């Protein structure tokens, strides 16, 4: 399913890749970006918030083509260097780190062409403008009629261990996204490859869930397979211990019919069947026992 989402056989407007320190999702994001670049159907805008643009550029083939635009939201995202040069004037203006929409609107080609937006990490953006504003901007990107932008797909990466209120923010992002890919590290059944838990919401409302393992080669091409859990075979020893195997020895171990009847009729010598009600003590004194008929509590003055 992951390959279908990447190749857009399963269309998805917002793909949210969640990773953690155990396994990075940057390679998968690059695979998505490479595919978008190779298709050449729409303009690709790559917004680099967490890493310098050079890092994304060197990782992608054909990155210098006309339809690929890199936006540097990493350098001087708070305007500290710029304001220093302007003699310490405190800048409250929109710096590039502040808004996805302003970054895209200032780019000359977006207004007329269909575009795919790739965000290398939402974390710096969430820290800078707050989660609410980031959510609203993502939402407005997807609603095509506003701002004169036609966005066909947004692919973003989010680090779940860096979000300030992760138990609140992450479910909201997952709700907004049409596809959520949660990256996990390799397991026993994934042959050393990282795993991806995918939840995809189809346009009709159906939700598809799958767990796959994937690998990405040096050309940023994705290969994914469904993860089948390798269950250890239950070596169940369900032997019927009641039945003795008869061919163990040459001796006769089982009972014949007459022998079974004789066994049921046998009265055991010390087993007395209690026919009377109440309890009764059977005492048989030995030769050495001293049986005294007197009541030992006779001398008590009660």
């Amino acid at each position, binding site marked *: 399913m992951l390959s279908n989402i990447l190749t857009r056989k399963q269309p998805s407007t917002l793909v949210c890749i969640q990773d953690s320190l155990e396994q990075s999702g940057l390679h998968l994001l690059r695979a998505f970006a490479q595919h978008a670049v190779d298709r050449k159907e729409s303009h690709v805008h790559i917004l680099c918030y967490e890493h310098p643009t050079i890092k994304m550029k060197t990782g992608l083939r054909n990155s210098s083509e006309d339809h690929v635009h890199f936006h540097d939201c990493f350098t001087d995202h708070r305007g500290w260097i710029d304001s220093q040069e302007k003699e310490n004037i405190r800048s409250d203006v929109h710096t590039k780190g502040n808004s996805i929409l302003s970054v895209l609107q200032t780019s000359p080609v977006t207004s007329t062409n269909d575009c795919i937006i790739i965000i290398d990490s939402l974390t710096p953006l969430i*820290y800078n403008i707050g989660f609410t504003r980031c959510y609203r901007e993502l939402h407005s990107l997807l609603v095509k009629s506003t701002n004169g932008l036609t966005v066909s797909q947004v692919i973003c990466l989010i680090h779940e261990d*860096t979000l300030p209120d992760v138990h609140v923010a992450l479910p909201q992002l997952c709700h907004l996204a049409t596809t959520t890919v949660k990256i996990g590290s390799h397991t026993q059944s994934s042959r050393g490859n990282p795993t991806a838990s995918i939840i995809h919401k189809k346009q009709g409302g159906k939700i598809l869930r799958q767990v796959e393992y994937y690998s990405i080669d040096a050309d940023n091409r994705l290969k994914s397979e469904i993860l089948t859990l390798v269950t250890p075979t239950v070596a169940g020893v369900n032997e019927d211990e009641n039945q003795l195997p008869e061919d163990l020895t040459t001796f006769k171990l089982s009972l014949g019919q007459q022998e079974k009847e004789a066994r049921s009729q046998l009265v055991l010598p010390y087993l007395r069947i209690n026919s009377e009600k109440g309890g009764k003590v059977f005492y048989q004194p030995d030769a050495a026992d001293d049986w005294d008929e007197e009541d030992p509590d006779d001398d008590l003055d009660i």
Partner: protein
Amino acid sequence: MATSVCSALGIDQENSVGKLIAVEEHHSSNGNFVLNCLIAEQVHKEGSVCLVALHNSFGHYHNVGTKLGYNLHQLQEKGCVESIEVLKLLNESLNAEHENRVGNVLFGDEENTMRNLFHLIKGKTEKLLQKRKLVSLVIDDLSNLLSLGISVKEVLSFLQYCRTLLESQPGLSLVVLTHIAEGDDEQQLLNAGLCHVADVIVTVCGLKTGQSSDVSGSMKVTHRRLDQPMIAHEWNKQNLYHFKLLDRQVKIFAPGTAPCLT
């Protein structure tokens, strides 16, 4: 003496220029030795060091350095080492604030504090790069900024600005240490934010089962090769070592091979 640590970190094989090495120090262990060994390596390669000392004074690093074989005071006089002693800056800023004069670097708006600190660092690294080609910016320790009342957002912005220096100033490498204590959410967030962007992560923690006279703690080295293609099993491969801190050196060995056991 410092070479065993550096070979464990893999720095002698890979070029650390333009890279960020994150040292994660867990509570009840001391990751300072990693920084000292990295400074020793840099001095050995005839590079410069810009030391941002938040946790200890400059004298402390000098004392440790003499045991590892380098003299920081001398190097500072020669101009190979620059330092920003934040503890002294704290004192000056507090006095400046009380007397209402200029010089208050640290007690003001959060963003201004970080911006001032960043500009100080930028100035020092530019000065060092004019003399020598290799400069290492060592920050010890980033989580102390949280103790100043600065929010995680501002500290991460400061870190991002330091990383922009890696690009704008070629020849610079960055080493940052953070402290993590369990239960401290801000430190966890800061550490996660740092490790996601680091090229090498060194995790120093104490032994899980308690204290030992033969082993001081464990050190895990993770190379996050984000630039290179993923290879199954190889990516994010971790190396676990045990170390013992001695008076004049640090011994690194594989778990279970402590000298007393062999």
